[in-house]
């Protein structure tokens, strides 16, 4: 059986790549996809720990994370469509009307 360490390390690498995507990309849809990548990395760690402890509660949490991600994508993409319709642009650096 492969060590849990290896899975957690892989999940951390994917998580960091996703976080860099959120920070560095300008396109709102790409930022969104990077958030999905981070959620996936967290899911991988949860499943690895579930196997380590022989307890499938971690699987249940992954199930809920996937469900919440689906809801989040539905609302987020609707927001992006609405913003694109009014501004013809989804560059997140230019969407700063809410700045104080």
């Amino acid at each position, binding site marked *: 059986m*492969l060590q849990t360490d290896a899975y957690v390390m892989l999940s951390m690498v994917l998580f960091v790549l996703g976080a860099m995507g959120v920070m560095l990309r300008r396109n709102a849809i790409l930022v969104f996809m990077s958030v999905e990548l981070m959620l996936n990395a967290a899911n991988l760690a949860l499943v690895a720990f*579930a196997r380590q402890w022989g307890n499938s509660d971690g699987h249940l949490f992954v*199930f809920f994370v996937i469900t919440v991600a689906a809801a989040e994508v539905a609302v987020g993409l609707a927001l992006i469509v609405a913003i694109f319709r009014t501004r013809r642009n989804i560059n997140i650096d230019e969407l700063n009307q809410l700045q104080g």
Partner: protein
Amino acid sequence: MATEVWLFILVGAIAVVAAVMLLLSQNAVHAALFLIINMGCIAFLFLLLNAAFLAMVQLAVYAGAIMVLFLFVIMLLGAERPGGRSPYGWLAPGAVVLALIFLVTVALALSQGGISDLQAPPAHPQLRVANLAADAGPLELRLNGSSVGDNLPQGSVRDYEALPPGDYELELRALDDRTLLSGSLVLEAGQRYTALIHGTGAPALSLLPDLAEAGSLRVFNGWGEAVFLVDFASELSDEDTIVLLGDVAPGALSDPLAVADDADFSNQALVNELDEVLARPGAGMIFNAGDGESALLVLSPLRRFEGTLEATVDLLVTPSQASFGGPADIGLKLFNQYLLPMQIVALLLLVAMVGAIVLTHRPKVAPELERARLGRRRVSRPLTSAIASQLGQGGSGQDSDPAALPPAGTQER
């Protein structure tokens, strides 16, 4: 190295490369396709981690539904082009440095912490109580003073209940709080037990460890004489009786008998040494060896109204333990322990659906207003271009402008 290690390295490398390409690709459609590859790899890793159900959900919901939604929106908006230069040029090297520091910290913590050396505690033993005593009436079984089977009527079997492993003081009480029996028992971790209350007069309690092997059938004899499980057809005919399980002494448990997948008990009977049929299991008593069930056939006396004793048969089926990470395991937990969170998440999905509709919904403009707005446009555009051409500036570029606009009404400003 084992196959699992090679598979992990290969699939993990593909996942990381896909994530890096997601970070670097200039075209949003390419980024979405790389994310699909990444999610496929993660589904494969779920399979390596014994999470078969989640691997399928990951493929169907994430790589399927959610990514289709992403691709659909990218192509609908025509947003595949890059977002342009960031005004924050210093962010990229800063992010890389922070990421490396974070990864080194995590690697140090993992190498020092020794997560993989931790061991899961063994599963708790499970106990079910069956009251098959002839004369005792409703009973209560207490272990270390706390009740495990309360108001247990004659002939009933409780579901399995998880208890901490260890030694227990047992006490069997009648409904009027008389103590009928007391003693002690030991429950070992990872085992499943049936506490069988049987006997005429003062009840006795036998603690039977349940077998995990699928399709094994055992006979417990709660009757006063030795019994045999025989083939009923051979019992009726002149030929020799086919004995399936022989000579089970009173109060004893037989060896396990392997039962075929679709076996039922309609042609079997329990007989005593004199070949008198004591009882026949009914045709409705079936257990499914193919689903991993095993069973215990209990012969016990039942007191009739006239005071005579009659042998009855009960079949106690031991269901299979749901396999780790399988749909049955997830489903059982979802509908028992996690029912409320599931309801809340379902509500959240409903709200998200309504929210998406509300966000993308375009309010309907009254028809006369819309017509007035379109009429104004139709008049004003040629007028402005005529004025512009008379003023002698920007002839061709502005002339083509109205034609380039989509048909009236499709574009909202």
